[in-house]
């Protein structure tokens, strides 16, 4: 972005293709201002915070076993929940797009609910459901399965939180995917699984990756719905955002910001990987 500034005055066309469409400067200017104030400025404040004890201070704040364990839990649970959501989110999107059944539209609308519900409410509801005396927890208890107050609880909470992202990413693509392809494949003798794997999946892959990335990013940073059900045991079921909160509780802003920056960096890396995967897929599709 910085490199753009000098070229604007000298050769306006150098950094953007000319277009007869009007409104670029207004829209682009507003966009940059908004991104600057709402996203870049606060991020700068975050990224500038951890260094009061230098790089050593930052590293020391991260490499503590407790912090590492929390980061691992947040990111592993988010990855696994996002993977499961890719599979089941696809199933739900598929069913919503392809089959007519009573109440389909209402179900379609309800998919967004975990997104809209305050996370604390979701957390309290999940904890009371999966607690040993809850509707589901009491069923699982005799089987020896404990969900609430274990790392599994974190996973369950992230499943609920991430689902809408996958469904909503896949749905439009699935809707616009020409049913003719599948019909053609069928006529050519492909079985249903074959046509799914060879025809539908490649078309869906970018959307699935997007959904995965979004569900993952949301899950890794999730706080409200998780703390009620996680048990919060240091080294076992304590999530990374909780480490930020406990650092703040000790008035350790630099330490809290360190964990925040580390989480942001990990999420960014994941985002870049998924973007690269998108590009690679697009290239293969283009050939």
């Amino acid at each position, binding site marked *: 972005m910085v490199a753009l500034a000098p070229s604007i005055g000298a050769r306006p066309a150098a950094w953007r293709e000319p277009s007869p469409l009007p409104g670029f400067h207004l829209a682009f200017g507003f966009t940059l201002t908004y991104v600057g104030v709402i996203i870049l400025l606060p991020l700068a404040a975050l990224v500038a915070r951890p260094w009061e004890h230098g790089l050593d201070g930052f590293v020391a704040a991260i490499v503590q076993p407790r912090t590492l364990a929390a980061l691992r839990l947040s990111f592993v649970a988010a990855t696994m929940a996002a993977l499961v959501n890719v599979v089941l989110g696809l199933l739900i999107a598929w069913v919503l797009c392809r089959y007519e059944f009573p109440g389909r539209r209402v179900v379609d609308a309800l998919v967004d609910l975990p997104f809209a519900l*305050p996370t604390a409410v979701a957390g309290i509801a999940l904890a009371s459901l999966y607690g040993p005396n809850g509707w589901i927890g009491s069923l699982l208890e005799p089987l020896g399965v404990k969900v609430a107050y274990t790392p599994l609880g974190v996973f369950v909470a992230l499943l*609920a939180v991430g689902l809408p992202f996958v469904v909503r990413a896949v749905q439009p693509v699935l809707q616009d995917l020409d049913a003719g392809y599948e019909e053609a494949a069928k006529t050519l003798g492909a079985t249903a699984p074959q046509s799914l794997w060879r025809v539908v999946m490649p078309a869906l892959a970018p959307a699935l990756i997007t959904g995965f990335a979004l569900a993952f990013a949301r899950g890794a940073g999730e706080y*409200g719905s998780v703390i009620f059900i996680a048990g919060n045991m240091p080294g076992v079921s304590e999530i990374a955002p909780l480490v930020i909160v406990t650092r703040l509780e000790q008035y350790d802003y630099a330490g809290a910001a360190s964990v925040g920056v580390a989480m942001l960096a990990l999420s*960014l890396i994941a985002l870049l990987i998924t973007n690269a995967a998108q590009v690679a897929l697009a290239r293969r599709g283009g050939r």
Partner: protein
Amino acid sequence: MIGTVAPRRIESAGPAVLVLAALAWLALLIGAPMATVFTQALSKGLGAFLDAFKEPDGLAAIRLTLLVAVIAVPLNAAFGLAAAWSIAKFNFRGKAVLLTLIDLPLSLSPVVSGLVWVLLFGARGWFGPMLDAGGIKIIFAVPGILLGTILVTVPLVARELIPLMAEQGADEELAATTLGSGGWTTFRRVTLPNVRWALLHGVLLSNARAMGEFGAVSVLSGHIRGLTETLPLHVEALYNDYDFVGAFASASLLAGLAIVTLVAKTALERAGRVAAAKGSAL
């Protein structure tokens, strides 16, 4: 709309199993927690449920939540349209960076989304002393709650619009411009109708998220009852007061609002599609 798949009736066992499996999963993940919220809210009868909405602090929380949504959502919608217009209709360098930046708030933990504003505008933040000298309060007041909410919801409209507008390309707008239509008219007559459902979906999502945001707002609110407590924070406060009926009643109000808007959206979309189909048939 050519090539769009219409949902079919279920005629064989395979699809029926798929549908049942999907519904079962949704019931487990979404239905059961929702049922918990509503049964708890009604556990002491309808009277106790309704009493929860008569309390002045609760009403103040509802008002504040609506105020925040009414400001945050239009701002984010305007941003989404501007960002999508520049990114989807024009080619410029640094587009990928801009896209990544817009997505970034989705990767921020809500706790961090609140904390960053404290680092900026808190009494000991970058601009704290300046604001203090000017007598302006941001953190632990409505502006702070608003900033936290905007940061959490900023990508939502843009994310709905950018891919769609990119796919639609600029051909229609170019044609309109060539025919002498002004920029604003082109935008209103050509672009907006093409993206209205995506825009609506984005706005509804932002709205739902803005009204339900907890983590970021919790850091920024100061928790002053009747003044800076939003509805989700009020839910937490009531829960901590052992007022479970009140807490879940307020929660079910939020959930109810979300359900109504989401169902309304689906209905609107459907009406729109039918109208569009009729229009093209004529």
